[in-house]
């Protein structure tokens, strides 16, 4: 704790606070309502993911990745299995690729819905939050139908997935998408175009593109700053290169490029893009056995791999080092929310306490992933 000047006050936001999205403590130095410095204190949710991983076998790491980013567990699993398959040089059957992409995109929609809804809640609008939760529930129902779990799936395995899709999944999913697409318009009318919401978010918490890159901000936050960077397009993994979709970037239509509204808006647009990918994937999905490529025993060759994938929060990287045994030598997770949070101090200086909440919400952090 530094020296406090006479007219400055240190305020602890969290660890128990409605808007820190978990157990995060922000040590905020304020001058009245104006914030002059923020020191985030992490680690309240540290569960030793990396240490755990060194003590369990490769397939047993997957349930732990679920618990890192618990709002997008499918994408967490996806990143890990993609890295593992790169390390072991496994080619998975096409159906598995399609299933993974369907699950990943559905989970992206679910995660973005939660991010947007909670953002509305941070700004003070309660109702859109519940509308979005209502629709997210339907996605979770589909996950439950597929793998039996609603939040922590352990669905993707190295070389395959744990279950094949249920029989009517395509029909159910298309039904959901048909129901869901008009809802986006309603969210926009209710929250996005609301003048108060725009006033609260536009021009607030601007992250210029170079600052964003320097801080390693990725995903929708980086695209909100106008940088067209999406791992799905630029370093395609799985079969993302087969699908037609756009990368929405922020335009600053209501304020400055890179403000909170842009980050929010990019997420909203990405939901539509995910719907687009889903429709293509559901149309083309081939038949096949999803367990064909499962290795009998996961014992990767000696070596290391760093692979990043696009989770809903940004570039989710796994650095896996194998020493030839069934137990990983080192697993490092580069979590996107960790890097996004690191720029909070620089971005929120000079803004008000209410804006800090707005900025923090727009970064869409998940503490499970930051603290690991």
């Amino acid at each position, binding site marked *: 704790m530094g020296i406090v000047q006479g007219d400055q006050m240190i305020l602890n936001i969290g660890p128990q606070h409605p808007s820190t999205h978990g157990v995060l403590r922000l040590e905020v130095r304020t001058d009245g309502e104006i914030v002059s410095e923020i020191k985030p204190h*992490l680690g309240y949710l540290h569960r*030793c993911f*990396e*240490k755990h991983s060194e003590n369990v076998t490769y397939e047993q790491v997957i349930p732990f990745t679920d618990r890192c980013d618990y709002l997008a567990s499918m994408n967490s699993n996806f990143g890990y299995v993609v890295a593992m398959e790169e390390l072991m040089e496994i080619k998975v059957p096409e159906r598995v690729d399609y299933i993974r992409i369907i699950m990943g995109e559905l989970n992206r929609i679910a995660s973005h819905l939660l991010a947007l809804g909670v953002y509305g809640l941070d700004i003070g609008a309660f109702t859109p939050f519940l509308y979005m939760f209502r629709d997210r529930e339907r996605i979770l129902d589909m996950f439950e139908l597929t793998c039996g779990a609603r939040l922590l799936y352990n669905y993707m395995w190295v070389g395959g997935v744990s279950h094949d899709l249920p029989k009517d999944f395509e029909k159910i999913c298309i039904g959901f998408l048909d129901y869901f697409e008009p809802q986006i318009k309603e969210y926009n009318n209710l929250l996005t175009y609301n003048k108060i919401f725009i006033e609260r978010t536009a021009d607030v918490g601007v992250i210029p593109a*170079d*600052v964003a*890159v320097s*801080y390693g901000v990725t995903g929708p936050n980086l695209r909100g700053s106008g940088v067209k960077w999406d791992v799905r397009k630029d370093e395609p993994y799985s079969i993302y290169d087969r699908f037609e979709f756009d990368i929405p970037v922020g335009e600053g239509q209501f304020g400055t490029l890179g403000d909170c509204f842009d980050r929010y808006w990019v997420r909203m647009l990405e939901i539509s893009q995910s719907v687009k990918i889903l429709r293509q994937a559901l149309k083309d999905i081939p038949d096949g056995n999803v367990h064909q490529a499962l290795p009998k025993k996961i014992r990767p060759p000696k070596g290391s791999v760093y692979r990043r994938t696009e989770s809903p929060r940004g*570039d989710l990287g796994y650095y896996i080092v194998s020493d030839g045994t069934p137990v990983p030598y080192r697993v*490092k997770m580069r979590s996107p929310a960790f890097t996004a949070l690191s720029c909070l101090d620089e971005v929120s200086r000079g803004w008000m306490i209410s804006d800090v909440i707005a900025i923090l919400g727009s970064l869409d952090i998940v503490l499970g992933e930051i603290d690991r």
Partner: protein
Amino acid sequence: MTSAEIKAVLEHQFPAAMVENEDLTEKQVELKGNQWLEIATFIKNDPDLSFDQLECITGYDTGEDGPLQTRYNLHSMEHRHKIEVVISHNRENPNVASIEQLWRIGDWFERETYDMFGIVYEGHRDLRRILCPDDWEGWPLRKDYEGQETYHGIVVQKMKEEEGWE
């Protein structure tokens, strides 16, 4: 540029800093720690290399007797090429120059690696533990780490062992 070309540029610029290491793949390059800040400044600002994104810093323990390593995954947004830089540290006194002011994310990545491995980044303005509590003892991800038995008077109870759980 491919990794080989990047390596060639590095070798041309900093011939003294290159280290041969057969364990590494062609995407990785090992450098000596003493010139690291200079090299980092060069590869970030050089228009041909222009590594403006630091993807990840991974601490790495090569074994109970081997050196510690820091691995930097660098990526260029402009040229879309990447390289992984490996720097080995002495196990007793691991230290290397901090690149926190070049890539701002290095701040937290270095703090994390410091927290887990005890590698000291010299020149870092705020090198504290980040995930573990400030008064935690030991460096958890080192291979020779042994957990604390008590922490602030809290005894790590082995209840399960008493009940016959292993």
